[in-house]
């Protein structure tokens, strides 16, 4: 069974551009979360979607947006890219909305975004 898949694996963009990152969850998982991991730091929560509805949002500007499709895959969009947006973007899928009793988040390999 395939794990969480993210595309693309690497991406280079110019400041001011827009980027779309994609994530396919594990089959049967209805929840997708996005995390930003800046070099040398732990992952920071950006968004969480469950059953196609936004269930949580971290402390990120409105330039960041996301959505979840009927097949539970998800997109993360970032507008007006800044140098500080350079990071590894991780997608996690789980059966239920949040990591808790008898559930866990499975992470993809991430998309490495470099803004120049």
């Amino acid at each position, binding site marked *: 069974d395939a794990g969480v898949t993210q595309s693309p694996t690497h991406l280079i963009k110019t400041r001011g551009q827009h980027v779309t990152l994609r994530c396919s969850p594990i089959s049967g998982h209805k929840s997708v*979360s996005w995390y930003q991991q800046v070099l040398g730091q*732990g*992952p920071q929560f950006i968004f969480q979607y469950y059953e196609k509805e936004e269930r949580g949002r971290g402390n990120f500007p409105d330039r960041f947006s996301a959505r979840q499709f009927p097949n539970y895959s998800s997109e993360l969009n970032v507008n007006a890219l800044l140098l500080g947006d350079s990071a590894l973007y*991780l997608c996690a899928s789980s059966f239920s909305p949040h*990591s808790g*009793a008898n559930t866990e988040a499975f*992470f993809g390999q991430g998309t490495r975004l470099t803004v120049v």
Partner: protein
Amino acid sequence: AQSVTQPDIHITVSEGASLELRCNYSYGATPYLFWYVQSPGQGLQLLLKYFSGDTLVQGIKGFEAEFKRSQSSFNLRKPSVHWSDAAEYFCAASGNTPLVFGKGTRLSVIA
């Protein structure tokens, strides 16, 4: 605010030596606790998790962790480190909320 602290940024151990990575949390109630490992350029792999019950939790790759409520700690241990254990280790917590991660501890293993 909910937070997870990993006091050690970088630890170097000899192959075959024992290992302990520290993790402290600050939460309103006892959260669910996790340890993840990340190899360079890779995603996160779950090593073990604590939800309730026995405070000593066994995980994959020979790792274990002990939950100590009185110290708000969840330290990761391994009795004998292998060179392949060199990676970044993240402690995380969740109270039926999104995961909150520590900043990580980088483990180097020397011969």
